[in-house]
């Protein structure tokens, strides 16, 4: 099980700030996004423009994640 944190429009869209996905340990970020889109089809478009942060660092789509990682979806930022 991998926990994923959501912010802003993503969290609002599904009414949750945290979801758990049953994916194998060591799955890639890309696969994780695909599984999310499968479970939450409404997120599909938004997921395409999202980055993923693992343990507070942006990672590439082919990065592997495990259940001990802090995984966060980062929609396009708009601070400042």
């Amino acid at each position: 099980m991998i926990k994923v944190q959501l912010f802003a429009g993503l969290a609002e869209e599904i009414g949750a700030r945290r979801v758990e996905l049953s994916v194998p340990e060591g799955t890639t970020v890309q696969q994780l996004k695909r599984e999310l889109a499968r479970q939450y089809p409404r997120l599909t478009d938004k997921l395409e423009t999202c980055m993923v942060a693992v343990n507070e660092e942006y990672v590439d789509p082919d990065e592997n994640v495990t259940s001990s990682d802090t995984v966060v979806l980062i929609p396009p930022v708009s601070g400042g």
Partner: protein
Amino acid sequence: MDVRNYSITEKEIDFQELVRQVIHPRSGAVATFLGTVRELTNGKRTLFLEYEAYVEMAEKKMRQIGDEIQEQFPESNVAIVHRIGRLDISDIAVAIAVSTPHRQEAFAACRYAIERIKEMVPIWKKEHWEDGSYWVGDQLETTCYPQGKPILGGQEND
């Protein structure tokens, strides 16, 4: 550099304190930047804004920006604070202060900081109007990340 130099806050930004954090005997110049909530954007009237942050990572990324500046300008001092929660018109959303021995570097570093913040610090803004609201960066006309990582130039509030 003190960690408190980079913070996310829910309170009104204490601008004077931010400047105090960077003033230094070796400095002759302090450049600051404040992003304030503007009432009109593309002719549309904003009622208020709502900011949300992934706090831990946002503070870490602001500190990284400070480190990048100090790498370019070893004698600089940097402080950045970003406010979250509900912000009304004219409220200060972000404040940056950079001191350097000479003014050219202070201006350059301050500009660099705001561009980098808009590029990659995980903070989001929701605009509220009379007739609705939306998360900036969440709509078609805004930034997308074809490379999976932030690129320069998104929708601008200031």
